[in-house]
């Protein structure tokens, strides 16, 4: 195992995306430098990504200084992303109020059972504030309620 896992993983990711872009671009007209089609630049960026990814792998093999990936808690990240996804899925058919309440509940899941009333108060307060500011104040068009 290399001492530089970051370079290895990053290089592998870039090469994978680069290859996908290069071959994905072939379904469009690539054209030539003189007359570029819509596939030209994606294909070119695919090649660039493969080359740079290769350099990153080379760095992993060449450099001796260890560069391990730091450990960190996954929990806050999962809660944030989950709450954003919940908002995205709810906003159109359940409206702003439900989406905001769900967002607050999920992002605060860690404290939900120890401080249920506080979280509820934040959720309701924030939902009211958002409706007042964005819908009534700024006049943004968005559904507010499920009905």
């Amino acid at each position, binding site marked *: 195992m290399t001492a530089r896992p*970051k*370079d290895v*993983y*990053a290089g592998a*990711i*870039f090469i994978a*995306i680069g290859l996908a872009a290069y071959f994905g671009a072939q379904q*469009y*007209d690539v054209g030539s*430098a*003189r*007359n*570029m*089609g*819509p*596939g*030209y*630049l*994606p294909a070119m*960026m*695919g090649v*660039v*990504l493969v080359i*740079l*990814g290769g*350099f*990153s792998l080379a*760095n992993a093999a060449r450099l001796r200084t260890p*560069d391990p*990936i*730091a450990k*960190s*808690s996954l*929990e*806050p*990240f999962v809660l*944030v*992303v989950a*709450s*954003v*996804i919940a*908002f*995205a*899925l709810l*906003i*159109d058919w359940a409206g702003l109020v439900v*989406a*905001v309440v769900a*967002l*607050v509940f999920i*992002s*605060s899941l860690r404290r939900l059972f120890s401080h249920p009333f506080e979280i509820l108060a*934040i*959720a309701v307060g*924030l939902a009211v504030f*958002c409706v007042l500011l*964005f819908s009534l104040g*700024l006049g*943004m068009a*968005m559904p507010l309620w499920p009905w």
Partner: protein
Amino acid sequence: MEALTQLVDGFAVAMTLANLLYCLGGALLGTLVGILPGISPVVAIAMLLPLTFQVEPLSALIMLAGIYYGASHAGSTTAIMLNMPGEPSAVVICFDGYPMARQGRAGPALAIAALSSLFAGCACIVIIAFLSPPLARIALAFQAPEYTVTVVLALVGVSMLSDESLVKTLAMAALGILIGTVGTDVTSGTARFTFDDTRLSEGVSFVAIAIGLFAFAEVCAMLGSDVPRPRILSRLRDLMPTREDLRRSIMPTVRGTAIGVPLGILPGGGPLIASVCSYAVEKKVARDPSRFGKGAIEGVAAPEAAANSAAFTSFIPMLAIGIPASTAMALMLGGLLIQGIQPGPRLMTQHPDIFWGLVASMWIGNLMLLVLNLPLVGVWIRLLQLPYKYLYPLILAFCCIGIYAFRGQAFDVLIAAGVCTFGYVMARLDCSPAPLLLGVVLGPMFEENLRRALLVSRGDPTVFFTRPISLSIVILTAVLVLAFMLPAFRRPAPPPTVDA
């Protein structure tokens, strides 16, 4: 001296009570909306554009400009206070502004940002008055090859800001350009990488990417850290910068202004590249570059001055040639066209009151921001000083609503969640998100100009080296890369990553 008389006339037009009120209203609205995380100046302009339809052309433009720079200042404010760039050009303000805030010196950072901005405004107005006719001619000399290499210069520039390996950051920039190609190709009308989904036909929302990469990532980082949230600005007298701060800021402000003026004129330059370049320059000329990234006041003063002077001069190509230099300027252009005014080479002669009135009002607006806004910073900050357990649901909700409102698509919010996940993984692998964002923003322009340059040259790539301006930019880019690769220029110890 014709320009000088016209400038005086411009001030006369801008100083009417109605226009002063529009200027003030725009600046305050821009600040208010811009301080809300996830609402960039572009979104602020887009949201408030309908308000200006009923107003006279000049007043409408003054108000839009007020929203634009009000929101831009707010962008720096959130960058300093929360490490959340309210707009792309505030990204570099995060690098040193946020560390300053962590050290309890948010006040001086905010004050220096406002002062250097005002200085740039004063300098620019003089420069514009004397140089705008020849500057417009220079801007006209810019053609596809020049635009193309300038984009490359910008991407290389921002990649060098990162402390990680140049290879990985350049790859992030290339990835950004690739993401920028998603959507309908403007030349051929082909839908690229949309997977037959109409929600992607206009491309990936820039707002979703910016929020996913920066705002959401910051919320994750704040929630993950056990360190109590740093105490920010408690007393108002903390606003006053020390004599040392001022002394350190003078030259960076002058240099930043000098960098911002030409970069604002080039379409595709603008505040973003200006702030990035000036930060890179300050880092290079500094006696002790290791201070950067840890709260160096120069790292706030220079980019802020550069961004503001570029914001001033970026109106020149939009008004004089009709080519918007940025998304924000594109919206301004839309606002003008609705008013029945066609920007272009004849605008300066046919409607000098609009051109010069706007220039004058921007300066007045800057002064207003300094006089009215800086004391109010205490109020804004108190809004943001809520305990984080109250603040992060607010940030998340505002961000989600901001993304949703930008294009009215819940799908964009899902994209932001995906981008946040990807950014989280890449940040763990030391791949900085800023070059990716820049690549997305500049990608479409890069493609259009690369295509046009090579079409005109019949596929001959030497077109980039045979034109004097283009060659100079290529040489500058090469020098930057070489300087980065030479061991002598490498910094000994990598400062902590601050852009995650």
